[in-house]
């Protein structure tokens, strides 16, 4: 199995490229072949992921361990092909693999208009490359490349297969994220030039490096706090826009509303996580002091996001837009957890990411299926879904419950520990501030219950509206069952056995936070 | 010394006047002839500076070739010969301002840079101006440019032909 360990991550990231190439070579007419190839590719990738899952060393989840790859790449700029996976990235990697498979299955026999499976699937696979890569990259430049690689496919997915207002939405999404990542790149460079690492550690014996691990180990050594805060600002913008945090969220509802179902699922399930992951993987460990100075503000934006998102939801008349706003709120919890800079909070954040990925992904799937059946997402035109498509309706109810953080389902473990962790944040951060945040966040959970149940009632309960009387509504297609079963199962399983995830992430998180507190002397 | 100075000033005034003529005369042919004066004056100045070879080349190429070209150009484009039509465009004044401004700046800088430097004409200088010296310098240090220029001339010749020929 040695060969596997060495090539695992490379396979995990680049198998989809091969698949994409094949897909592009198959003539447009031969749809079946295209679909099959795409599906197989994603399954193989997932297989690799499961392989990694089985051979991962859970006792030392902080170590990059046996899967680490570190080859020369762009020596001239001291950037290397350094891939590795730890307990924080692993769940997200698997999630993105799984979601990709699920999306391909889901779109099996309902592709969005204009009908072009070839292009669509190729883009999904390309997207997967970017997502997987981002989670595996251990070199800032590599990270940046993958981080950006995600943009294009999503841009096209929204722009080509999106709703009526797709052009505006796609360009907005594109430029927003782009602006962020431009500043992010500047910050990366600034890190390279300002952080001193011991020569004997770097591969090319140079005292500057893009290597995340080494930079994290340096922990912003020899940076005055003003510089740190400045660099952190760049990183913050880059990631916060992706998350998205409160004032930078406006691209999200548009993007989600216009995107095709699969698009929004991928967007919600994985793309948003890139931002939060960036915080945990880069911003916090590399610039601990700045992180501590920024923490109260991040926390503030996070809780604003929680309330603000909830209020936004309550104002929606469009089901999908409502779910989109709920993402803002949920990512607020994740960011709150991160902002505490405690193992508790960060663990919660990691769990929250996965949970949100599964649950909101499902909700978007459902929204898509509802639209497919009723040609509308307007809440006031929907109703009585339970009578016309009971299974779909109950699944919607289930996901709504999961999303409002019902204990026993995955959502709870992202939400509750995050609130819990806000009770006493890391040393040197004002307790009072965060306890206020805690209460606000707790109120946020009630609001969440409010808008989700409200949506559920509007969509599922009551009797069908006049226009749908007698209309034959098909309940649950096979493809939907196959696609959704794993997600639903995971929502329950993770809810009942949270340690499946906590056990994975905990070691790594402890390592990250421990490193920080070592630097912060707290 | 004095002699050369006097000569310089006469030539200079002539050239300056002629230059103004070139850019102000309302008759194209006159403008061309003024240009001849300027060019001739320039070559005379070269002689004053003991650059015989350059001076003669100036006479040959400019007065011999370029001005003729211009005259051909004037004929071919039926440029207005009598001063009836306006040869200037609508931006005389801005042009004047800009050029005077430029003049001011440059003169100031030049004066500042080479305050009272004298150009001494003596044997050593005359030796520099010798065609032999120039030639050897060309063929010792500037062979490659020289060759390239030949290609360039060929190119411009061909180019001019292609562009100008009627087809």
């Amino acid at each position, binding site marked *: 199995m040695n060969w596997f360990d060495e090539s695992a991550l490379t396979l995990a990231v680049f198998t989809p490229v091969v698949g994409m190439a094949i897909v592009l070579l198959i003539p447009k007419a031969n749809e079946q072949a295209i679909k099959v190839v795409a599906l197989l590719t994603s399954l193989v990738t997932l297989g690799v992921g499961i392989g990694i899952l089985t051979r991962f060393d859970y006792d030392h989840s902080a170590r990059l361990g046996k899967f680490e790859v570190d080859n020369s790449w762009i020596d001239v700029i001291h950037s290397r092909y350094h891939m590795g996976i730890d307990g924080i990235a692993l769940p997200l990697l698997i999630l993105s693999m799984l979601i990709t498979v699920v999306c391909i299955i889901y779109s099996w026999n309902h592709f969005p208009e204009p009908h072009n499976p070839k292009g669509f699937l190729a883009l999904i696979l390309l997207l997967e490359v970017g997502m997987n890569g981002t989670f595996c990259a251990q070199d800032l430049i590599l990270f940046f490349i993958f981080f950006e690689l995600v*943009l294009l496919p999503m841009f096209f997915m929204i722009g080509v297969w999106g709703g009526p207002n797709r052009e505006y939405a796609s360009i907005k999404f*594109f*430029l927003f994220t782009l602006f962020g990542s431009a500043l992010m790149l500047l910050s990366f460079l600034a890190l390279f030039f300002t952080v001193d690492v011991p020569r004997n550690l770097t591969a090319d014996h140079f005292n500057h490096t893009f290597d995340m691990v080494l930079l994290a180990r340096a922990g912003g050594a020899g940076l005055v706090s003003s510089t740190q805060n400045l660099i952190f600002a760049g990183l913050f913008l880059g990631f916060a826009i992706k998350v998205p945090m409160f004032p930078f969220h406006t691209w999200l509802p548009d993007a989600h509303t216009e995107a095709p179902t699969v698009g929004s699922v991928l967007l919600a399930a994985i793309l948003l996580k890139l931002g939060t992951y960036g915080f945990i993987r880069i911003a916090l460990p590399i610039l601990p002091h700045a992180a501590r100075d920024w923490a109260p503000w991040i926390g503030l934006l996070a809780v604003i996001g929680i309330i603000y998102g909830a209020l936004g939801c309550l104002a929606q008349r469009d089901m999908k837009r409502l779910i989109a706003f709920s993402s803002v709120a949920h990512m607020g919890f994740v960011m709150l957890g991160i902002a505490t800079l405690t193992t508790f909070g960060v663990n919660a954040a990691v769990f929250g990411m996965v949970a949100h990925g599964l649950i909101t992904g499902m909700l978007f799937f459902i929204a898509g299926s509802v639209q497919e059946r009723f040609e509308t997402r307007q809440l006031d035109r929907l109703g009585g879904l339970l009578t016309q498509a009971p299974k779909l309706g109950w699944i919607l109810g289930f996901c709504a419950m999961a999303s409002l953080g019902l204990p026993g389902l995955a959502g709870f473990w992202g939400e509750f520990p995050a609130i819990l962790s806000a009770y006493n944040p890391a040393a040197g951060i004002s307790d009072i501030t965060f306890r206020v945040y805690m209460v606000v966040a707790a109120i946020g959970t009630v609001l969440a219950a409010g808008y989700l149940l409200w949506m559920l009632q509007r969509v599922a309960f009551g009797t069908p509206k006049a226009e749908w009387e007698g209309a034959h509504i098909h309940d649950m297609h096979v493809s939907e069952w196959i696609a959704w079963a794993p997600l639903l199962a995971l929502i329950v399983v993770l809810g009942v056995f949270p340690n499946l995830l906590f056990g994975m992430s905990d070691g790594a998180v402890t390592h990250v936070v421990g490193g920080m507190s070592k630097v912060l002397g707290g | 010394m004095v002699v050369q100075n006097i000569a310089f000033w006469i030539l200079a005034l002539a050239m300056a006047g002629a230059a103004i003529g070139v850019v102000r005369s309302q008759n194209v042919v006159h403008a061309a002839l003024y240009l001849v004066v300027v060019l001739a004056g320039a070559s005379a100045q070269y002689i004053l500076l003991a650059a015989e070879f350059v001076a003669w080349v100036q006479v040959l190429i400019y007065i011999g070739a370029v001005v003729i070209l211009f005259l051909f150009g004037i004929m071919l484009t039926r440029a207005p010969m009598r001063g009836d039509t306006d040869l200037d465009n609508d931006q005389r004044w801005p042009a004047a301002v800009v050029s005077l401004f430029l003049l001011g700046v440059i003169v100031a800088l030049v004066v500042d*840079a080479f305050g009272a430097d004298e150009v001494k004409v003596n044997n050593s200088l005359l030796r520099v101006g010798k065609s032999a010296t120039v030639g050897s310098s060309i063929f010792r240090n*500037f062979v*490659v440019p020289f060759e390239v220029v030949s290609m*360039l001339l060929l*190119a411009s010749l061909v180019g001019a032909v292609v562009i100008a020929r009627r087809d």
Partner: protein
Amino acid sequence: MNPRFDYHALAPEIILSATIVVVLIADFFFAERSRWQTSRIASIGVLAALVPVITLAVDGTTRSMFDGAYAVDNYAIALNGFFLVVAYVTLLLSVDYISDGDYYQGEYYFLLLTSILGMMFMASARDLVSIFVALETISIPTFVLAGWRKHDAKSNEAAIKYYLFGVLSSAVMLYGMSFIFGLSGSTLLSDIGRYAFQHGTDTPLFPVAIFLTLVGFAFKVSAVPFHFWAPDTYEGSPTPVAAFLSVASKAGGFVALLSIVYFGFFNAPDGWQPILWALAAASMTLGNLTALRQTNIVRMLAYSSIAQGGFILVPLAVAADGTAQRSSFEAVVIYLLIYGAMNLGAFAVVIAVARRTRSGEIESYSGLGQTAPALATLMSVFLFSLAGMPPLAGWFAKFVMFRAVFDAGTAAAITLGVIAAVNSVIAFFYYTAVVRRIWLHGAPETAVAGEPTIPPALSMAIGLTAAVVLVIGVYPQLFARIGELAARG
């Protein structure tokens, strides 16, 4: 005594010159319809000229002649290679364009190659005279080429504007050079460098002279405010020529800038840094902003190339600060190589599209995604690469640019870096505008369905450039290494 000739060092130029002559003569002997053969000869010659370049590269020793007026070092070799490849691609672009419309063919290639010769000479030129000659050799043939569509008033206009600007700026440049000669008492860059080192800018005339000299190159690289000719000329002249101008002759200008700045004025930074700073900032900003409102694709590319020129100027503008000397040299070279590939590619696609739509308007790209997906994809690739989108080569160009800025690390440098960052975001507006037309807009009824018939030469050009853009995008080390060697001199 006779000067020592190193024929190995001169071989590329010699082979090229020979080819030039052969092309010119061959043109007489070919019948009208087989005139296109001359292009074949030309390309063979270009490829042949590449051989000694490679051997020199392998040999790798720095050769210098005529008291250092002419040098063949890594830098020269690298750029010679670049110019030859660009020439080859340009030939590929031109073949069908020139042979389809009834243009003079032999003369066309003849002039093209002469201009290339000028560029190669420029790469090795190390004194003012050679630089001047090289610059003119680059320019004059292109003046003519710009007007190659003789019966098209626009082409004429393009020619005259380009010509006038060229002449004026070279006059200004010469005037500046004359002062530099006067002050330093030599035309050799090495001597000038010595003078700059000793006296710096204590005579105010020196910086001004430097500036006047730079104007000539600023014109070549179409840096604001010496850029006015570019959009009009690009639009008016034959598209392959526009491509050539926007890549090759621009590169020529940058090479000149590099040589004169690094080997000449480097030690008098006050003389050139502020100017280049201003030019860079102005070019990026104005270029981008104006490009936003363009309706003609070539014009848009013209402004974009102005902006790109601005980006390339950024490292130069900070070269003397901090530790940026090496890295900014690298940055310029690398940026040039990448820029050449992606811009040529973009133009190639424009030519291919125009073959069918007969239009350069951006509207005519609507729905290209459905009617010609392959072409549309490639166009998007090139545009996104120009925009600096990973993992396409463009990102690395921008990256090394920023890297140089950080290497310099002065306030001015960082400011320029921020301006560059903002601009690189603005740039996305107009690049994506085209992409949106291609993919997000429906094709007009008039559009012809199905892939346009792309002649092999053209598709080869597109393939070549696309390959470079993609490969360098994921493995920039190749170009990075070249840049590093070049910077080592």
